[in-house]
């Protein structure tokens, strides 16, 4: 795969918007459903994934000329798995409560298709700097969707943002009710679906018009 014509800036921003991993490539949906009930967990998950994709792309790209093609995938997985374990350990040491809330989902970054997908599709064929930017861009693109979904879900589902109540007490007394559906996984399905639709209907953002 050749990306010769892309500038570094384009490489970075492509993952965030035009080829957003969730909205365009439709990768990483599973964790996007699971950790978006609250903004806090969504942000930490986004940061963790961005760090992993960035670092794994950088490392794979540095090794790309040495990696024997026969054991390519297993080497990529080993690198990614090690990075995820280190991130998990760091979270347990410094953000214990959040690490408990994220439970298995940090470990499951290993199986997040975005990480392996970027390593395979980009890092193996490109120099370190563009690869790093591509990884970070895709990670941020994923984070952006996660946070957007989490804002809607936390606001409608529990009337809070970042754990702070924003729906005024007067409303609640007047009969306003939280939307229970938003705290459940189906709520995330609807929001992600709507987001993908919204993004692709914006002028210049749809890949179908190309």
């Amino acid at each position, binding site marked *: 795969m050749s990306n010769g014509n892309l500038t570094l800036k384009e490489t970075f921003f492509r993952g965030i918007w035009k080829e957003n991993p969730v909205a365009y490539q439709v990768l990483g949906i599973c964790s996007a459903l699971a950790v978006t009930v609250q903004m806090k967990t969504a942000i930490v998950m986004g940061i963790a994934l961005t760090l992993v994709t960035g670092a794994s792309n950088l490392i794979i790209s540095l090794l790309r000329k040495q990696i024997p093609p*026969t054991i390519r995938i297993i080497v990529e997985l080993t690198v990614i798995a*090690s990075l995820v374990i280190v991130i998990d350990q760091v979270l347990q040491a410094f953000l*214990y409560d959040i690490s408990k809330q994220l439970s298995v989902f940090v470990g499951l970054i290993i199986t997040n298709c975005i990480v392996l997908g970027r390593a395979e599709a980009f890092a193996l064929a490109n120099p370190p700097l563009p690869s790093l930017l591509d990884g970070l861009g895709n990670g941020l693109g994923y984070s952006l969707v996660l946070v957007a979904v989490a804002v809607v879900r936390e606001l409608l589902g529990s009337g809070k943002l970042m754990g702070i109540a924003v729906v005024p007490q007067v409303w609640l007394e007047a009969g306003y009710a939280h939307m229970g559906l938003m705290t459940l996984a189906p709520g995330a399905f609807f929001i992600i679906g709507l987001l993908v639709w919204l993004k692709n209907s914006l002028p210049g953002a749809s890949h179908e018009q190309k």
Partner: protein
Amino acid sequence: MSESPRAKRIHAVKFALLVSVVCCLLITGASTGLSPLQQANKRLDRQKNILKAAGIITPDGTPSRIQIQALFQEKIETVAVDDAGNFMDPSQGQGLSLYLYREKKILKAYVIPIESRGLWGKIKGYIAFERDGKTVAGFTVYSHSETPGLGGEIEKAWFQKNFIGKKIYNAQNEFVSVSIAKGGIAALPETEQAHSVDGISGATLTGRYLTQGLKENLKQYESVSVKLRQAYQKKTVGNDMTTPPIKETN
């Protein structure tokens, strides 16, 4: 490349070994280096759960590290009891550990650690009793491996708050423990309702194992509960339990 297949294979093996060693070192370094911090976090989390079970902090409260330590220091006393339910010196070896919650030297509640089998791994938590020795004051889980959204709901407040006020003795004063019902408790006969909590749909097995685990754990602490109950009945008027009530009955 003009490498022979043999050279390629050797290169692959060498490369695999090198990657493994580097990754091993990285993971080992991270896990041993951060271990003291992680242990401290776990200890703090356990203390927070003891306070939660005893009802000192609310289920959705987010006290700071310092607040937790101060509250724990001030209100909770860690003690050990022997098989007969008597308090023992820490020097006499390991007994069953137990946490006493005192408010102005008056015993308010006591907290028992729970370790139960779950569907995928151990469930660890605390159950607190009021000083009558039979009414549950709170229940928390601080570590489990159940499926998020199904058995994992045992760590949620809606499930845990149902334990409050349940009795572990029936009308005949026999030990019955607390059970997790299959479905809602509304369907159960009225005599059972006081000893059961609503189950989690989709997590029947987690409920069954936790019921079993609670029963086994509470049985171990039966002698203590009996003593506390006797002491409580003796002095239902006077609430001045300045010393552990068990010592008074000796």
